[in-house]
């Protein structure tokens, strides 16, 4: 089984740290993958909200390339990419019209059936005990609110890996690192990523509610698995403060970064210093650990 890697645009720029930490962590856990050659953008929200054919073609181009490269799986760490790829693939599978159209557009025939997997599936599959075994740092004081966002588990009929309303897979991973996962309400509420730039007002409100609920349920860190979520929840905190003066900065980590920390890696190595909010994550969390 050869894993393909589709980083997606964000992981090459604004979410570099996600890419960095993912590579570091998987390396340590002995998971290997190959980047898809000459991959292009999945089309993201902008394509499917304005032009469905374009969206299907952009997504399928990458799946096709991976197939040609001899890969069996595609890991898409960005929840939005994951969602676009799996939905487009599903559509092509179920509607011969779209299939034909897209095949014609790309001048190929879709033959290989690649499995698109998200970051949670990757860790669940590769064995949580590996994380537990290789744990170096004590994270028992970490109270994580696992934030799935909207696109990771929906629609469950297509993603087929966790419950759409009360997902638990990220909690399982977080608990494998020795951290504690809190039960909270906004696991799957949308942060409005699609409007991150064009309607910042909306995004700030939505993200604020998410952070507040995490705090209300005793979390001391938000754990995310999507660059868009991270951008909104981390980078927008300054704007949030402007609108809601009582707001206090709150740490937001990528799941891979949390795993990396538990494996004893250095914050800088994991790229955590690239976060917008300047936290000494490891210290803060360790202090909390000390406090219990």
């Amino acid at each position, binding site marked *: 089984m050869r894993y393909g890697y589709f980083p997606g*645009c964000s992981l*090459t*720029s*604004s*979410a*570099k740290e996600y890419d960095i930490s993912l590579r570091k962590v998987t390396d340590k856990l002995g998971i290997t993958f190959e980047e898809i050659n*000459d*991959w*292009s*953008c999945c*089309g*993201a*929200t*902008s*394509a*499917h*909200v*304005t*032009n*469905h*054919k*374009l969206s299907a*073609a*952009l997504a399928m*181009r990458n799946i096709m390339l991976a197939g040609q490269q001899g890969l069996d799986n595609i890991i898409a760490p960005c929840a939005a990419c994951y969602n676009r790829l799996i939905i487009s693939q599903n559509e092509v599978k179920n*509607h011969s019209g779209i299939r034909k159209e897209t095949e014609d*557009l*790309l001048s190929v025939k879709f033959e290989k059936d690649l499995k698109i997997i998200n970051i949670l599936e990757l860790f669940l599959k590769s064995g949580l005990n590996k994380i537990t075994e290789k744990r170096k740092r004590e994270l028992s004081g970490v109270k994580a609110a696992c934030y799935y966002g*909207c*696109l990771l588990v*929906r*629609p*469950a009929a297509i993603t087929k890996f966790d419950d*759409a*309303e009360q997902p638990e897979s990220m909690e399982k991973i977080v608990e494998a690192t020795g951290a504690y996962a809190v039960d909270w309400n906004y696991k*799957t*509420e*949308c942060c*409005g*990523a*699609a*409007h991150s*730039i*064009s*309607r*910042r007002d*909306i995004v700030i409100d*939505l993200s604020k509610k998410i952070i507040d609920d995490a705090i209300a349920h005793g979390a001391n860190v938000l754990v995310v698995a999507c660059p868009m979520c991270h951008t909104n929840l981390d*980078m*927008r905190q*300054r*704007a949030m403060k*402007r609108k809601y003066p009582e707001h206090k900065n709150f740490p937001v980590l990528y799941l891979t970064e949390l795993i990396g920390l538990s494996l004893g890696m250095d914050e800088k190595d994991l790229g955590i*210093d*690239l976060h*917008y909010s300047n936290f000494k994550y490891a210290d803060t969390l360790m202090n909390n650990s000390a406090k219990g």
Partner: protein
Amino acid sequence: MTSDILKDAKKLQTSFIPSGNFKESFKEKEHDKNISIQIHERSVEDEITERTFQDVSLCYQCGKCSAGCPVRYYMDIAPNKVVRLIQLGYYEEALNSDTPWLCAGCLACSVRCPKEFDLARFMDAVREIALEKGVEIKQVNILKFHNAFLDQIKNHGRSYEAGLVADYKMKTLDLFQDVDSAPGMFLKGKLILLPHNIKNRKEIKRIFKKTSGKN
């Protein structure tokens, strides 16, 4: 207020009474010069069904979609009402609404709909049709953002924030909106200034060209 109510009453009359057929009555409106959208033989409802593979009449207007929609508070009309307008043939009102543009595509509605109606997909189709019919989009920044984003992909194969933000700001002339993030990103080395061009940009261009044609 009063006048609005009267307007609505009038609309009901033209829509319901003369033909008893919503699609027909919409065609009658063709002569109305105030209407900016083109009317095709095929009704908007049929087009949506064709594009989304689902019948609009499935929706029984329970409102569960709107109840759980994260951006509901910012919309001019509730998501379920957009479906209602299409069901009854008020295409103009539906296509002119902000709601489809504000929809963040989060799928909360689709996964909870008791009738298994994929409303997010429906919204995609409404937007597509509105664009194709040349409806004036009120959420202009949202559209401009999408266009800026797609331009990036069209030209480079991937998007990159610096170009995206620059392009978007050119398009919207809103130069100061993101000041609190862009410099920081730049300093942290995350806002890459040069685009990453993929090799096979020709193919991407071709895809864009071929899909840009109206249906």
